[in-house]
């Protein structure tokens, strides 16, 4: 997974995006607040989702929303 190092710790980009998602930000706000290009945010979210750290849901207005899984919170809060 591009955003997780071989030792299981999150890369800086992975941590930045996962933190934003944990705060309830969507992809657009994550991009604007982190300074990452939107395409990069989408790539990282997909990688986090593939790794079981994030799940996607569709909000009432049709926009994509994301929830950090227990495994994702472990990664964030475990400092790795």
């Amino acid at each position, binding site marked *: 997974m591009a955003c997780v190092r071989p030792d299981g710790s999150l890369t800086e980009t992975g941590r930045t995006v996962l933190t934003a998602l944990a705060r309830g930000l969507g992809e657009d706000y994550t991009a604007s607040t982190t300074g990452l*290009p939107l395409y990069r945010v989408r790539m990282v979210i*997909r990688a986090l989702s593939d790794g079981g750290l994030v799940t996607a849901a569709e909000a009432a207005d049709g926009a994509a929303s994301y929830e950090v899984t227990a495994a994702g919170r472990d990664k964030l809060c475990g400092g790795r």
Partner: protein
Amino acid sequence: MDATLCPPRLPRIGEPAPAFEAETTLGVLRLEDFKGSWLVFFSHPADFTPVCTTEFIAFAQIHEALRAKKCELLGLSIDSIFSHIAWVRRIEESFGVHIKFPVIADLSRQVAELYGMIMPGESKTETSRCVFVIDPKQIVRAVIYYPLTTGRNTAEILRLIDALQTTDQNAVATPANWQPGDKVIVPPPRTQEAAAERVNTQGVECLDWFFCKKSL
């Protein structure tokens, strides 16, 4: 699909850009990740070659200007991801230029063939110097093809983005050698009545009923 019956063809202006998923220097990327942004998607023949190196430096130098226009950059060549990583690191070390845009490692040639980037008359194993300008709805808006021998003009690519965005925002066309701030072309009338009205329209300078310019 039988490739002999249905050979791959170049994506055409006005058509949806072919979708793909590919490994890049920034991770796995899909074309749809760029939805909502303009995209300059370009190919180069090979890493660690001189003309390509000058082009990467030139693209890096316009990267921030493109991003200010809500336009992203994406490169591609038929090289491995390790070659890409080594080359961009070498560019940074030798030239002090940081390559921040993703570069597709298309060893399988899947994306190159999807976009008609290989010109067998030039090379069967390298992409030519192709540029696809893709709009926020992922429609191909412009295509540029240059040979292996000739580096591209990145100022022209910037100008092209300005021209296309000006067209989209103002429903106008741009004349030859147009630069931002120059007068734009008012689309010609398509009926006699409209032609008669056009030459009397305020704010429009007409040399003939079909040849009218205005300032934005």
